[in-house]
């Protein structure tokens, strides 16, 4: 690992200042589970590291009946997985968090790091995109809010500008009755990066289908939402044929790559299977 200067700012303003005044390459470190490995492998060699762990007030989970859920970016995946309020209101987020790495990893890894690292396979992304989450970001020029769907720019890239820090993830309240699943497909049951990750969320109001949300991970340069597939069920009637058609449509939204984990062809096929499985389960249990 190349030598670097290490900062431990105690407030957000200071962190932003260090990150933005530098003419040198500075990187934020949260849990470090992605960054330290990237530095070890020489994929990243920042000259400065700004540790966010000393910042107060970025590690929280809050729920309000009107506004929904707010999660501080420094919140550990392990805390999300175990949070009783998340379990009750957004169990699909617990499912997604639990699918990541090991207990050891989840004790360090943060939700902000998972999103900002912007791996196409980031397991928190499909569930949060399907929940229509928003990202609150703060930089030298002030704050802005970005929908998570627009947050990713490509593999390893986000729309964050130099000096900007992700501070909060907002998950709006879901109307009516809902049920969601996150299905992660990998070669092993644990400790594996997804070949494909599929999140399906169905909402119903007064017995009528109100919302269908399908989001996919690891099958395109960024996590994506499959809106055309959602429409098929929303516009037509719900039948086994419609489910199959929606699954085919979801596969069309993918631009997968072939890599050590899977071929492009297989990723597309498995997306069909998982979307079908997810839709069936949600429609049955909602």
């Amino acid at each position, binding site marked *: 690992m190349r*030598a670097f*200067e*290490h900062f*431990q700012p105690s407030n957000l303003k*200071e962190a932003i200042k260090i990150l933005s005044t530098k003419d040198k390459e500075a990187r934020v470190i949260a849990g470090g589970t992605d960054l330290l*490995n990237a530095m070890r492998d020489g994929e990243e060699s920042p000259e*400065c590291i700004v540790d966010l762990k000393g910042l107060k007030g970025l590690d929280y989970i809050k729920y309000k009946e009107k506004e929904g859920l707010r999660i501080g970016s420094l919140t550990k995946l392990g805390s999300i997985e175990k949070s009783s309020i998340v379990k009750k209101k957004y169990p699909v987020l617990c499912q997604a968090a639990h699918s990541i*790495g090991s207990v050891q990893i989840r004790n360090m890894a943060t939700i902000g790091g998972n999103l900002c690292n912007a791996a196409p396979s980031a397991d928190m992304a499909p569930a949060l995109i399907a929940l229509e989450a928003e990202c609150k970001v703060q930089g030298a020029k002030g704050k802005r809010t970005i929908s998570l769907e627009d947050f990713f720019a490509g593999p390893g890239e986000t729309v964050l500008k130099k000096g900007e820090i992700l501070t909060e993830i907002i998950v709006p309240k879901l109307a009516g009755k809902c049920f969601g699943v996150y299905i992660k497909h990998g070669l092993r049951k*644990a400790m594996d990066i997804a070949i494909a990750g599929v999140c399906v969320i169905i909402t119903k109001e007064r017995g009528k289908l109100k919302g269908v949300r399908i989001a996919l991970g690891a099958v395109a340069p960024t996590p994506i939402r499959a809106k055309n597939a959602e429409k098929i069920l929303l516009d037509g009637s719900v039948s086994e044929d419609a489910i199959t058609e929606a699954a085919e449509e979801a596969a069309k939204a993918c631009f997968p790559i072939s890599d050590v984990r899977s071929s492009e062809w297989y990723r597309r096929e498995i997306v069909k299977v998982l979307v079908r499985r997810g839709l069936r389960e949600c429609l049955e249990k909602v």
Partner: protein
Amino acid sequence: MPGEGLKKGYFHMKKIIELKINGDFYEIAVKPSKRLLSVIRDDIGLTGTKEGCGKGDCGACTVLMNGKVVNSCLVLAIEAQGKEIITIEGVAENGDLHPVQQALIDYGAVQCGFCTPGIVLTAKALLDENPNPSEEEIRDYLSGNICRCTGYVKIVQAIKSVRG
């Protein structure tokens, strides 16, 4: 001024940090890039903590940080300041083995032993959190601790035997 050190090339300089490991305080000079694992093994000389993969996959380097298991290969030593760190050397109390340690011996759940320190700490953390885990919960909690020898059956049996 933040960053000034960088311009002057001071950033290669070591920083003095204080770590609390197994209840003892250590003052050590480290480069910012030094991992907690290296400090524990090379500077302090507690070699019970092992390095397997060095990247978070195997769990051989597991230590407790404020009561939670973490991979010490993925923690910068400088960021472990102010934390309560327990390594395998700090698990036995007054010379008595931790019940998990004794159970691993009794069940013959140790072969080469390379994974064992990590397994002990992970099992301890599990039982502290959940005194009565099911077999499935035990296996799930251990998924970040790779054992290449035993096939896990005896490890799981041993942990089951010390449930509350």
